[in-house]
């Protein structure tokens, strides 16, 4: 008897942080915007860079590159505005990214228990295996939403 991991075809957005590419589930992505003025004020949440104003809403800017690549992004070309949490407590975060993003349809392999909490799954694209990110595990202050693998367990 052979065992194959369940594949789930999903729309994902590929994003670039420095030299590496990551993916987010498309339903978590609100828009991709050009960098706008960032407002900084005193706070103690280290991953937060500041806030931007988007459609009258204050959105926290959360740089994931240091966690994911070990380097700060420096100059970002765009902000990917992503949603997290559940409908009752939906929240936006702006993720600085270093290049244009790409919407793709891909088969997702769920994360295994051995994967880091920030990995919601894996996809294969252009010969590259790419992490699908779990924003709730990566960004501060998120409600403890289950990861893809937990949700499917």
């Amino acid at each position, binding site marked *: 008897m052979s065992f194959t991991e369940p594949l789930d075809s999903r729309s994902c957005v590929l994003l670039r942080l420095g030299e590496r590419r990551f993916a987010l589930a498309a339903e978590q992505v609100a828009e991709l915007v050009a960098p706008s003025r960032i407002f900084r004020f*005193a706070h103690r*949440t280290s*991953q937060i860079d500041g806030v931007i104003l988007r459609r009258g809403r204050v959105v926290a800017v959360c740089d994931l590159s240091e966690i994911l690549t070990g380097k700060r992004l420096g100059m970002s070309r765009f902000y990917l505005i992503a949603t997290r949490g559940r409908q009752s407590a939906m929240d936006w975060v702006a993720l600085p990214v270093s290049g244009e993003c790409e919407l793709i349809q891909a088969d997702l392999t769920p994360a295994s228990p051995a994967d880091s909490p920030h990995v919601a799954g894996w996809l294969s694209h252009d010969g590259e295996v790419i992490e699908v990110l779990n924003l709730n595990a990566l960004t501060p202050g998120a409600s403890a939403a289950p990861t893809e693998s937990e949700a499917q367990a």
Partner: protein
Amino acid sequence: MRFKPAPTPKPLRTEQIILFRSSSQIFAISSGSVQEVRSVDSLAGAATGVTEPRVNKVRHAIRRGDRNLYVVNVALHFGLPPSSAALVFVLRKSRLALLVDGIEKMTTMTILQALPSAFCNEERQWYRGLTVLDQSVIPVVSPEGFLTRNELVLLDAVSATTLPPSRPVAGLEVNP
């Protein structure tokens, strides 16, 4: 045919605020929370030094009646570089005064947005929320966020024996 009358616009809920500077950053505080604005010079004779290493943002206290009023250095509270403070805000219905660099302006806010939930540390106690003025985002401080009950107890313990009896001091009443 009769048209429905246009709904009368609800009056905007507005709040008078003071924009103030501390270590080159701008903050807002509800003017209703501020009882007096005084110059630091006017404190010179009225304030007494307080040394409590666990609450090092408070270095002075003023005796008012039978209570101590603790002067919080706003720059130290927010972890900002030290700055030359020129004004003291004596807070209403509080045992606090705030040491700030200066007043930027008094204005009105119509929007107070909740702090995004990504901010998840002490800043949630520090700020009531964020307001947007002239396309800038300004944090609105929470008067209750400057000292905890435990910090007040610590300060009371060290200042009980050191503060002189109260004396009247002149100041500018913001909300008489």
